[in-house]
């Protein structure tokens, strides 16, 4: 049994563009879809309402500082996150490579949007993937997995305690991977992608996993220029 558990941030952040009412409407509408026979053709606005609750950047009233984190990169070299990304627009995600669903989709979406940036902006954007399963995510495996999506992506692995502490500083709670009796693993990944500004190295906004490529397309040029979309 594998478990990806995403947990609540330590402190609540106010979602300027996340409308609770929309989610309620979505839930109510989906109820109709689930039970109805006449309106189950799926052409209604249900999916769009539902999507609007998760597809926009979530602006943070209290920006997050970049965590102090020194790990090993996918070339096997030490990587000091604060030092190596100072002054760079940076996206940060906590995930693992034996994750079939959310982790590769999140990274592939970012890769897709990054590939469409003008070359000058593309060169400035740094994308950092921190493993929550560092024992299995060796530098070599991170290089293969991220390299298949975008070789510029920075994969980091190392001591779980350091990774957990860094995640916690951003309100992402991940527990140590557990090997189950049947030989499978339970591993947790973050549900958020943090966007750190090149101006002050703080995250002024984040995305929930599940944001659309189109949203990254729109926002990445803003992030690179140090603006909050």
């Amino acid at each position: 049994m594998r478990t990806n558990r995403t947990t609540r941030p330590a402190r609540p952040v106010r979602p300027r563009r996340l409308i609770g009412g929309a989610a309620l409407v979505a839930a109510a509408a989906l109820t109709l879809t689930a039970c109805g026979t006449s309106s189950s053709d799926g052409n209604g606005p249900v999916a769009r309402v539902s999507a609007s609750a998760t597809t926009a950047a979530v602006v943070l009233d209290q920006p997050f500082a970049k965590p102090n984190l020194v790990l090993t990169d996918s070339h096997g070299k030490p990587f000091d996150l604060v030092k190596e990304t100072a002054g760079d627009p940076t996206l940060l995600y906590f995930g693992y490579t034996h994750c079939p669903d959310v982790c590769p989709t999140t990274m592939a979406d970012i890769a897709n949007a990054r590939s469409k940036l003008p070359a000058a902006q593309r060169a400035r954007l740094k994308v950092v993937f921190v493993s929550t399963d560092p024992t299995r995510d060796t530098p070599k495996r991170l290089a293969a997995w991220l390299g298949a999506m975008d070789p510029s992506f920075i994969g980091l692995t190392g001591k779980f305690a350091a990774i957990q502490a860094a995640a916690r500083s951003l309100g992402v709670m991940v527990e140590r991977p557990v090997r189950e009796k049947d030989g499978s693993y339970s591993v947790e990944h973050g549900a958020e992608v943090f966007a750190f500004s090149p101006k002050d190295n703080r995250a002024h906004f984040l995305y929930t996993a599940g944001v659309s490529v189109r949203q990254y397309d729109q926002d990445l040029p803003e992030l690179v220029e140090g603006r909050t979309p």
Partner: protein
Amino acid sequence: VTRPAPATPSAAATPGAAGAAAPFVTPRRTTVLLAGTLLAAVAVTGCSAHPRSDAAGGKPRLSVSGAYVPQPPLADMAAGYFTVRNTGGAGDRLTSVTSTTASDVSLMVTKADGSMNGVGDLPIPAGGSLRLRVGGDHLMLMGLKGGRPAVGQHLSFVLHFARSAPITVTVPVEPASYQPKG
């Protein structure tokens, strides 16, 4: 298999969607969202227990659409998605999926709190649908034979059900950031 049909967000997908949004809300809004999730959950329960289903002696009538596998980064782990629609008068359950191109295929559910677990089956209510999607319920494919599949390649899934006959689906490999329409 045609291109993905317009989405019919299934009841099973709802808690995941609401759950993904929940961590970022102020306490007051959490209540609203939780209420929404509960509402959906109640509806699901009500649905599957609906007397219309089996008491009427109907049969499930299933069709599969929108199947795809996003190109995985490596061959050892991939996801699969599709929608099973049930236009019949009785519910059914997806009990397993087999594929000659994967060493193992598991049914996974994403719960309202974002946690993911393997399950023995997934319900397909009468007059409703089961929709597998990114961040929600999905297939986990392990050990793809023949290495990392190329975009445009096709895999084959056989869907097995509690009541209906198995359905074989040809599944295209799509770009990793492919998003079904709808």
